[in-house]
């Protein structure tokens, strides 16, 4: 009976995820998945009560109150611009919880574990620990507590390889010698590895890292399911592992880089400080931008991480409203890796009440640029860099980009000419058809709106 109820929970998860395939049904889908979780929790409680043993319910209740309270507080208070940090933190808690479940199994086991249980226990401990600490470094980078540039541990990736090897050896010893101490050493090394692997990854690669850690949190849960022999954990964990993996692959494809190269290699451009800023650009102010926008027929807005940093999503929407009132068609082109997590820009624009059918994918947007009068690029850089198409020496060569240079005019709203995190110069900025509007994104959009109203 219990097994069937867990199966029902697993089915509800799948039905819920299926709901997420359309924005219309997504909210209901999420609630169906939540119902599945409720079913699983009720089943485990009923099952435990049926054991008729003395149980430490106080600890369970305390954990539910503390954890539920923290989760609710974070979920209700978070700003949409801070969503990548929150998801990173939640990934970490998920991975940590699964490692703790496996750890409790080690502490509580009084007989020698069967080999397969020992293997899944060590996997749950190691993957869970990497997810926990790696996610918190990712959180720190996104929150600005940890430097978002690449920070290498002493010895670089060799150090990481040694730590990884140490964790594998310790886990192997734990499995074959049934040694709890060896498990703890493996867990500790994995926790260090999470830190030293994520520290060298730059801010712009965070979409890949968060997706991968998301996948890990699922795999850790599935492994914990094997440890305690529970199919609900195996199903739920496998689903999340698959979801995270799909997103990871999609992000890597959108950057035209392998997952390994994102995780383990140094990435940087050839542009030096002297290079940048010496070539002439067309500077524009709010009035120039307003004239270009107000007399266009079709405008496409390309948002990037700078939009999130400046909290400019509502300013974008206000500007778009003003243009639409003048009969101008306004759409949005979203690159898959714009921002700091998959879908980051879509959530921000949804918050500002932008209709989701106006948000165009890379494939939908690119054929339209040649019929677009003005492209307004707000805080995006590498995803509109034409050298990805033209310069074989560029580190981003081959990355699919938004071909904004096909449009009649491009207005780039940017704080300064400084290159993005990758340190790659952007030839778009020096094009005759490009106007550089140097300002904070939010301020720039508000000033442009005021100038349009004054026309």
């Amino acid at each position: 009976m219990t097994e069937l109820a867990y199966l029902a929970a697993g089915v509800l998860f799948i039905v819920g995820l299926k709901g997420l395939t359309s924005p219309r049904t997504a909210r209901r889908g999420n609630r169906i998945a939540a119902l599945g979780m409720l079913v699983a929790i009720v089943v485990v409680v009923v099952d435990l009560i049926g054991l008729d043993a003395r149980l430490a319910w106080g600890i369970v209740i305390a954990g539910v109150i503390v954890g539920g309270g923290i989760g609710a507080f974070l979920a209700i208070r978070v700003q949409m611009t801070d969503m990548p940090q929150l998801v990173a933190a939640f990934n970490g808690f998920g991975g940590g919880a699964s490692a703790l479940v496996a750890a409790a199994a080690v502490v509580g086991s009084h007989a020698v574990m069967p080999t397969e249980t020992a293997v899944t226990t060590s996997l749950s401990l190691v993957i869970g620990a990497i997810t926990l600490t790696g996610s918190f470094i990712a959180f720190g980078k996104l929150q600005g507590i940890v430097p978002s540039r690449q920070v290498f541990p002493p010895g670089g990736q060799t150090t990481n390889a040694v730590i990884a090897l140490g964790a594998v050896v310790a886990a192997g010893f734990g499995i074959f010698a049934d040694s709890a101490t060896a498990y703890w050493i493996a867990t500790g090394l994995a926790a260090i590895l999470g830190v030293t692997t994520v520290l060298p990854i730059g801010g712009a690669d965070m979409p890949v890292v968060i997706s991968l850690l998301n996948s890990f949190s699922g795999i850790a849960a599935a492994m914990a399911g094997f440890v305690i022999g529970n199919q609900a954990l195996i199903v739920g964990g496998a689903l999340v592992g698959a979801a995270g993996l799909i997103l990871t692959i999609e992000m890597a494809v959108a950057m035209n880089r392998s997952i390994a190269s994102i995780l383990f290699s140094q990435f940087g451009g050839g542009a030096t400080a002297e290079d940048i800023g010496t070539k002439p650009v067309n500077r524009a102010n709010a009035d120039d931008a307003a004239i270009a926008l107000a007399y266009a027929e079709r405008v496409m807005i390309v948002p990037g991480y700078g939009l999130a940093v400046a909290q400019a999503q509502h300013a974008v929407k206000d500007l778009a409203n003003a243009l639409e009132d003048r009969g101008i068609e306004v759409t949005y082109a979203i690159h898959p890796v714009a921002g700091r997590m998959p879908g980051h820009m879509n959530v921000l624009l949804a918050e500002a009440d932008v209709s989701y059918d106006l948000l165009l994918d890379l494939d939908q947007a690119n054929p339209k640029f040649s019929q677009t009068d003005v492209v307004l690029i707000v805080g995006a850089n590498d995803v509109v860099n034409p050298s990805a198409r033209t310069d074989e020496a560029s580190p981003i060569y081959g990355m699919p980009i938004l071909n904004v240079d096909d449009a009649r005019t491009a207005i780039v709203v940017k704080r300064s000419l400084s290159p993005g995190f990758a340190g790659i110069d952007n030839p778009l900025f020096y094009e005759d058809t490009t106007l550089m509007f140097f300002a904070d994104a939010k301020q720039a959009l508000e000033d442009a709106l005021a100038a349009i109203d004054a026309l």
Partner: protein
Amino acid sequence: MSAEFIAGIVVFVLAAFVGFEVIAKVPRTLHTPLMSGANAISGITIVGAVIAAATGTGVLAGILGFLAVTFAMINVIGGFLVTDRMLEMFKKIPGKR
């Protein structure tokens, strides 16, 4: 290998394939809610956490159980709530176009 373990592997592989098929169809615009929603589902480890916390004996087991339940509950409650909050905002506004 025990029959139970093999059954677990079967379930794992099938669930992963179903997951791939279903999730590959999620549009890019919903990728952030997908991730936070999936995150909440990985909180299914709450089941293991509750068992660990309730049946554990000794101080160490108690601490591990408490932390496991706490972490998993942050994931479950936080994940589903924040996903709901996000999805509420995704609207198709007619008449614009």
